[in-house]
């Protein structure tokens, strides 16, 4: 099968941060993911990862990321071990993350990890010989979410360069938007960051975009920003990331995406969200053609199938 021919060698490679990848490499993954769609939908089947075992270590709650990794592995004929809740593991007895990783390393061919501490996946990669995939490390990185977001924008808007992309919500603690801002700048998108003053995009991310030749606009006003947007990427104000509950209460509910707001936007604007959403998108928006977030969530499967195939060297 021609689409299984791999031109770049990803075998054994850790997927920790989107910053570890060149644009050419990202393109390769996205192109490969595109060809995975019929397999992700179960319309075609190839047990190319038969005999391979994936450790799925989720120290923090997850619905989409964990299930889509498991689906990706199953769709390719592989098996998954692991946990969705660390309370049933030796971590409760005080075991270090390093030792947990050593064990998973000896039981499986690849490790997917989500952890509440920043840098956890990079640490895991130090203690594992098998490839490690970061499924979110605290407020750090979430590279596979970033890849599926790029995949979605590329598919829906027929490209990323020069598209006007508005990121709105918690830009300070939201790991998704940090990775995404970098990647979008890499592709030459026009960026606007909308957030409450206390949840502004970190200066490191702004500087990173500038180094890539993109000067992001920053504002607190969504009404203005939405008018020119091709893509509206909404994020949840994440209660669990706030060191101070008072700070959370002051900003929660700052932005609400509803039909009224979208009337002011371009007709073909798409609304994306990494999910879960709480109150930031009115359920009425779900029925409109602007709502892409459920399709976006599905795209996690082909993208993760592509990644797993590549890092497991799937001679696919």
């Amino acid at each position, binding site marked *: 099968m021609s689409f299984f021919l791999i031109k770049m060698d990803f075998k054994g490679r850790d997927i920790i*941060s989107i910053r570890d990848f060149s644009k050419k490499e990202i393109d390769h993954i996205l192109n490969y993911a595109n060809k995975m769609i019929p397999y992700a939908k179960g319309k075609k089947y190839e047990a190319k990862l038969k005999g391979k075992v994936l450790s799925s270590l989720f120290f923090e709650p997850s619905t989409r990321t964990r299930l889509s990794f498991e689906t990706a592995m199953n769709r390719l004929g592989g098996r998954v071990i692991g946990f969705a809740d660390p309370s049933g593991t030796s971590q409760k007895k005080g075991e*270090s*993350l*390093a030792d947990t990783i050593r064990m998973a390393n000896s039981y499986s061919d690849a490790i997917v990890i989500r*952890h*509440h*501490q*920043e*840098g*956890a996946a*990079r*640490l895991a990669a*130090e203690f594992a010989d098998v490839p490690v995939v970061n499924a979110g*490390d*605290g*407020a*750090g990185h979430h590279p596979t979410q970033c890849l599926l977001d790029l995949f979605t924008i590329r598919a829906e808007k027929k490209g990323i360069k020069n598209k006007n992309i508005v990121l709105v919500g918690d830009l300070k603690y939201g790991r998704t938007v940090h990775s995404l801002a970098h990647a979008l700048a890499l592709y030459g998108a026009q960026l606007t960051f909308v957030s409450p003053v206390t949840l502004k995009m970190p200066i*490191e991310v702004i500087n990173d975009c500038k180094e890539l030749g993109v000067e992001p606009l920053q504002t607190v006003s969504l009404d203005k920003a939405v008018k020119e947007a091709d893509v509206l990427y909404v994020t949840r104000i994440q209660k669990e990331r706030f060191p101070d509950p008072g700070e959370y209460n002051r900003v929660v509910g700052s932005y609400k995406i509803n039909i009224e707001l979208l009337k002011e936007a371009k007709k073909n604007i798409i609304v994306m969200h990494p999910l879960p959403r709480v109150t930031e998108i009115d359920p009425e928006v779900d029925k409109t053609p602007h709502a892409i977030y459920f399709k976006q969530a599905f795209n996690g499967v082909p993208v993760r199938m592509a990644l797993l195939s590549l890092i497991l060297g799937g001679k696919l």
Partner: protein
Amino acid sequence: MKELKIPLIKNGSVIDHITSGNAVKVLHILGIPKGTSSVVSVAMNVNSKMGKKDIVKVENRELDPQEVDKIALIAPKATINIIRNYKVAKKHKVELPDEVIGLLSCSNPTCVSNAKEPVKSRFMVVCKDPPKIKCYYCEREPEDIADRII
């Protein structure tokens, strides 16, 4: 020969060209005066061709390379002179390596390097002068490097 503000030492180390005002931080990095009985002389805001500088002289103690690395974090232009019998036996300008391992703690309380894991802190040097570093694990850049020295 130009007269020195502080006396020559017979044996030990002279740290010259310390960024003006940073001598006390250098002493902190070296763990002085705790744990040493060496005589230490400090001169601050000394005039030199390149403007004001600080100088530290530590008698009977030769700095080891790890200590030199630590100093480079806050005094990137410093030079270390090892003195033996009143003569300069060794002299070199400090320079930050590309990585600094085990010398600083990360400023991010939720960085995995601050958890009880069997790893030393690790920082990538983004800029050598003025020193700018980034945590290898969480990628946070500490604002005040001197405050992060272990």
